[in-house]
């Protein structure tokens, strides 16, 4: 007999409002139906009503954890729209902050994952080590969460020699800790018993369902925007894509720790090779962007992040489209949860590192008829035809 269990939108296990309906038979999940759209903030529309410089700070607020990667993608997009080159030193600083952010995001996730499997000792240890990264970010940017480092044409803050030494010192300490977690994770029985073989996602399924980021790489698919389509200086930094062939939650843990180690290496490379020079190209606060369209993708901590923009020659963008990685991972998540036990729901949901406030899209629901539909282009065309007859 199949029982329907609704979870959410307000649920203590998830920090953000999201609803899942689990169809269970005994202890096993048969089917999952997710429902997004509780936290839609209309950021894309807000961006159309502000100038390019104002949008920079709006894009930073798309996500609370990976805030810098959104501005990085946005400034890369606007620079492509304007055919603009940025100074070399700015690229290095951007990369340092991007990789530090990836470190803090992955360490945060690692702590949460250990907490979800009930291993709170490691959760505290990982979060203690995450403070090294947070302090460095605070030192570089002035704030712990929204760094406001990137700007169109470069970066806003320079990294001094003293800060460089502190970064290298912090990275050395962190690398030691990360190597310890890398050694510990596949050996420690508390972790292995809760994660090995849990939430499986085969390579074919991962490709078919278009998973992104560490979720995809843990299913043994070598795909990373930093390696496939290098932006900034990832080509020069000899970035290596990390994969795991375990195809389960343990694989995702290992891929993320490996990526952290790789991030530490990139930061050290950046700090050591940083040239002197200007950090930004001066632009007037309100400027016009020529008519153009462009698309940019970067690797956010959670996966591929896509920005698409259309400019119409004015000081405001005509359209900015954001595709965040969690949205791409939702179909894969539903597949992972099939035939799993109810007790494994928290860790499997957490394993894609969900960020639901980025994910939300507009969904229309007719409560009386029980019908729901999304606002797609064919639907708009249908509406226009219905109203204007063309």
């Amino acid at each position, binding site marked *: 007999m199949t029982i329907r269990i609704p979870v959410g939108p307000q649920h203590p296990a998830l920090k953000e409002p999201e609803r899942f309906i689990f169809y269970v038979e005994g202890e096993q999940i048969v089917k999952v139906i997710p429902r997004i759209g509780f936290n839609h903030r209309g950021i894309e529309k807000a961006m159309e009503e*502000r*100038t390019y*410089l*104002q*949008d*920079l*700070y*709006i894009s*930073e*607020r798309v996500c609370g954890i990976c805030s810098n990667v959104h501005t990085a993608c946005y400034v890369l997009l606007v620079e492509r729209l304007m055919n603009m080159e940025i100074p070399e030193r700015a690229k290095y600083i951007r990369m340092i902050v991007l990789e530090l952010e990836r470190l803090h995001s992955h360490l945060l996730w690692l702590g949460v994952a250990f907490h979800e499997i009930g291993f709170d*000792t490691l959760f505290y*240890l990982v979060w*203690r080590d995450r*403070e090294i990264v947070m302090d460095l970010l*605070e*030192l570089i*940017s*002035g*704030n712990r969460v*929204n760094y*406001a480092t990137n700007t169109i044409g470069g970066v*806003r*803050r320079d990294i001094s020699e003293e800060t460089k030494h502190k970064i290298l010192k912090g990275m050395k300490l962190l690398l030691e800790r990360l190597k310890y977690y890398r050694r*510990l994770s596949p050996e*420690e*029985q508390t972790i292995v018993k809760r994660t090995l073989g849990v939430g499986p996602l085969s390579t074919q399924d991962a490709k078919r369902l278009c998973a992104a980021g560490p979720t995809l790489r843990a299913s043994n698919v070598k795909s990373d925007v930093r390696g496939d389509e290098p932006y900034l200086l990832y080509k020069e930094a000899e970035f290596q894509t990390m994969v795991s062939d375990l195809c389960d939650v343990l694989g995702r843990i290992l891929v993320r720790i490996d990526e952290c180690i790789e991030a530490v290496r990139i930061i050290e490379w950046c700090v050591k090779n940083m040239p002197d020079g200007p950090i930004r190209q001066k632009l007037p*606060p*309100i400027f016009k962007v020529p008519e153009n369209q462009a698309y940019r993708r970067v690797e956010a901590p959670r996966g591929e992040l896509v920005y698409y923009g259309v400019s119409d020659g004015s000081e405001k963008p005509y359209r900015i489209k954001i595709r965040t990685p969690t949205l791409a991972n939702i179909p894969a998540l539903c597949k992972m949860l099939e035939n799993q036990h109810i007790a494994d729901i928290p860790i499997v949901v957490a394993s894609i590192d969900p960020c639901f406030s980025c994910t939300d899209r507009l969904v229309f629901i007719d409560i009386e008829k029980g019908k729901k539909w999304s606002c797609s282009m064919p639907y708009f065309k249908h509406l226009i035809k219905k109203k204007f007859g063309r």
Partner: protein
Amino acid sequence: MPRVLAFLKDFLKNLSKKPATIKYPFEPPSQLPEGFRGKISIDYNKCVGCGLCARVCPAFAIEMVQVGFREVSGKKIPVRKPRVDVGKCLFCAQCAEVCPAKAITLTKKFELASEKKEDLIVQP
């Protein structure tokens, strides 16, 4: 190593350490970094009233309000100065960056909770 001893090294290290937490608000918070972005402060004597800060603010927190008149060759020209609603402010410091007179700075003050909304308004 036996499982029980896996964390022994960390355990011994932590025994000799002071707690990482501080007794805020009884103890002052740890050193704020250079370039921390806190509550906005405007030097109205330096301000030239150009209104650039109001035009770049992404949160529309800055509004130009009329404070008086200035006489230029016999004509009365209104003088406008920025009025900031810190409740809307998102601490990006873009206003401080564009200010031609360097009248705007972001202080290190971050304890902004208040009972009255009026306390959170910076005005001439």
